[in-house]
């Protein structure tokens, strides 16, 4: 089976872009804190078309039956739906997004028609690529006007070994649509994960996106949000960190292109020895975007020596009628709080766990899926105890 003509056309565009841009390096401002060299050095081979199609079918088959009708592969897309692929995730300056298209043969599209509410969460469980493989993953979530849907993407992995997942997810929430999205990056040790979640929110649309960036050796997820019509409201929540040789990068860009839109960011890192966390968040308010309200928070907890965090919370504002604020804090657990818990009879580890889980609770409690919450809490406990 050969690829769809539209996919071939997208690939040609991507090839041009990739040839022009090449891989980013340390001098590329957006990649200042995350090295690409280890991924290049690993010389990973792209997963072939047959294997990609097999995986896409397996992931699709695992979707709950009551939601399965909304999930399609690339083989038979209506033109209006197909046109959404590659529309929000621009290629300029995104070498990995170009690479994703270059290696891509199949993906999944979740299309929810106007006014339809999908009750069951749609869970896409991607698993982990074979050692030595570079796997592109592509998803489009298209929620038509007033539609409602919850989508969860999981990237789980056991064991160890170098492999790359290059995931691009596009979310288009048309007027009044409500989308809840969660991405759990729990790749195995030694694995690389580069992902991009591009979101476009229309008039009075509401998008909630959760990011759990807790696995892998080197993982980066870019969240690109465009608020393109009045009343759009986007909330981004992210939890990252862990123990051991991990590098977790979250790169957030929120563009307020229209008046009366709202955005909130809350990202928290829990980093133990050996782990490095990177947060970059930009709120860009265009000249005409009056009555913008935007907040941005990045809090980082360093559990012990050898943990490292780089944070860049940024505001770029071209309009006076706005309320924007950001904050970033980095520190360790509060000694007084620890002492208090110890004085109440808790042992040191339990006290540390309790405070750390409390630090992350606002994010874990908000997760749209019980299984994800349990997973996140497990990972945090591991980070504290060194398990």
């Amino acid at each position, binding site marked *: 089976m050969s690829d769809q003509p539209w996919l071939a056309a997208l690939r040609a565009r991507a090839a041009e872009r990739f040839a022009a841009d090449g891989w980013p390096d340390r001098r590329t401002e957006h990649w200042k804190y995350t090295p690409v060299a280890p991924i290049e050095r690993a010389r990973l081979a792209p997963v072939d078309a047959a294997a990609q199609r097999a995986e896409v079918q397996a992931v699709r088959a695992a979707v709950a039956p009551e939601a399965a009708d909304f999930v399609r592969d690339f083989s038979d897309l209506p033109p209006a739906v197909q046109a959404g692929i590659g529309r929000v995730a621009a290629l300029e300056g995104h070498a990995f997004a170009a690479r994703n298209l270059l290696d891509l043969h199949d993906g999944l599209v979740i299309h929810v028609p106007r006014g339809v509410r999908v009750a069951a969460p749609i869970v896409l469980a991607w698993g982990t690529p074979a050692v030595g493989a570079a796997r592109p993953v592509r998803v489009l979530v298209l929620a038509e006007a007033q539609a409602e849907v919850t989508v969860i993407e999981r990237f789980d992995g056991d064991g160890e070994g170098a492999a790359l997942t290059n995931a691009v997810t596009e979310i288009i929430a048309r007027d009044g649509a409500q989308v809840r999205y969660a991405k759990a990056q729990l790749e195995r040790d030694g694995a690389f994960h580069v992902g991009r979640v591009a979101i476009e929110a229309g008039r009075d649309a509401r998008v909630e996106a959760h990011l759990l960036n807790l696995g892998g050796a080197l993982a980066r997820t870019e969240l690109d949000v465009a608020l393109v019509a009045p009343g759009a409201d986007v909330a981004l929540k992210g939890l990252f960190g862990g123990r051991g040789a991990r590098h977790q990068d979250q790169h957030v860009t929120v563009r307020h292109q229209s008046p009366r839109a709202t955005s909130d960011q809350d990202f928290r890192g829990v980093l133990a020895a050996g782990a490095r966390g990177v947060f970059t968040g930009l709120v860009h308010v265009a000249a005409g975007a009056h009555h913008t309200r935007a907040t941005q928070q990045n809090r980082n907890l360093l559990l012990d020596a050898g943990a*490292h965090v780089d944070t860049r919370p940024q505001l770029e504002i071209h309009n006076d009628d706005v309320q924007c604020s950001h904050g*970033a*804090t980095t520190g360790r657990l509060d000694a007084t709080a620890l002492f208090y818990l110890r004085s109440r009879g808790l042992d040191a580890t339990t006290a540390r766990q309790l405070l750390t889980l409390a630090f992350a609770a606002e994010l874990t409690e908000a997760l749209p899926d019980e299984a994800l919450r349990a997973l996140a809490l497990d990972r945090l406990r591991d980070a504290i105890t060194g398990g």
Partner: protein
Amino acid sequence: MEKTPDNAFVESVVRKGYEHGFVTNVESDAFPQGISEDVVRAISARKAEPEWLLDWRLKAFRTWQKMAEPAWAKVGYPTIDYDAIYYYAAPKGPAPKSLDEVDPELLATFEKLGVPLHERAALAGVAVDAVFDSVSVGTTFKDRLAEAGVIFCSFSEAVHNHPDLVRKYLGSVVPRGDNYFAALNSAVFSDGSFVFIPEGTRCPMELSTYFRINAKNSGQFERTLIIAERGSHVSYLEGCTAPQRDENQLHAAVVELVAHEDAEIKYSTVQNWYPGDEQGKGGIYNFVTKRGKCAGARSKISWTQVETGSSITWKYPSCVLIGDDSVGEFYSIALTRNYQQADTGTKMVHIGKRTRSTIISKGISAGHGQNTYRGLVEIHAGADGARNYSECDSLLIGSQCGAHTFPYITCGNDSAQIEHEATTSKISEDQLFYCRQRGLSEEDAVSLIVTGFCKEVLRELPMEFAVEANKLLAVSLEGTVG
């Protein structure tokens, strides 16, 4: 466009003229335009500099030739033609021996600016090392300072009278190849100020330099070096004003501070270079490298700046906190209006244990002004118990301006504690309304609110400067509200 009170106010701000835009008619003794090894040699020869310094300049020049102009700052300007600049301009005639020999027209210039030189200096109790274009024209209070053992002189004098000190410390904080503009300065710097405070001495008065760019098309490349020995204390004031011209002028200064054990340096700047006209024509390009080294334990360096002038400001007064328990502070007000652009902030590099830093930055944008805070807080792995607090607030006046915040925070020590917060908003209607209904004019109300917005920084300024800074802010904001 709808004519709201805000718009009228903004227009009035934009229309406000530049008060210090006069030209002093003193014959200028300038080198031909352009830069080359010959110009570097000629500057060095004119100042009868020792061989090592010429060598240092030449190395800097060769480094500069290999460097590229930085493009990362959020400022836009046409390409600078480095061959169209005069790199040295001095008032003609032999250097004055005392204030009485100083050209009266020069003194009149300072008079207009309100520099407390000559008798006025006595009243104000401030010693002034005034830099007129490139040569220091007069230094006062030398005797009283000499009594305390303080050295306060022009850079060229220091090269001749205190060569060991200059040689030891020159480039020790800002190496000659540190960045493009610092390298350029290192090659062609013409003069500046030198301060040395001996061990255990509290400088008996506040030291002040008044920089002034006068000759047409001349760049100003001054270099300041302040050394505070163990247990000493000094407060240094720097004020800048430039005449009104259509061409853009380049100002690339370097300031180096060294604070030894238990020493404290307080460096205050009020920068009011010509900002260009309401079309954004002309104005100073202020590309300055300022850095302080807290070399000894418990040393402290505090930067305070009020930036209301220049068409472009590119300036990051920084602290390298090496000594244990050393302290770095940065207090800044940056006001941009018309087409002014400011990309300013600080770097706090924590290396020693229990080092502390505070960053308070207030940006005010009006008209088409673009105001960027850019800063770095870096905690090294060995900086146990380091502490940083940053606050960057922006105030927007009018819908055409921009305010941007780009902090970089890097933490490699788990016992460090870092907090950063920033807000961006306009003057609230409620505040304005309250002031208006209490009988204040809109103009006074705005001025009051802006002063309140800036008060955490203004209170860090020494008395004389606080008055001037308050006046400058008010002048920059005043106008008749229609």
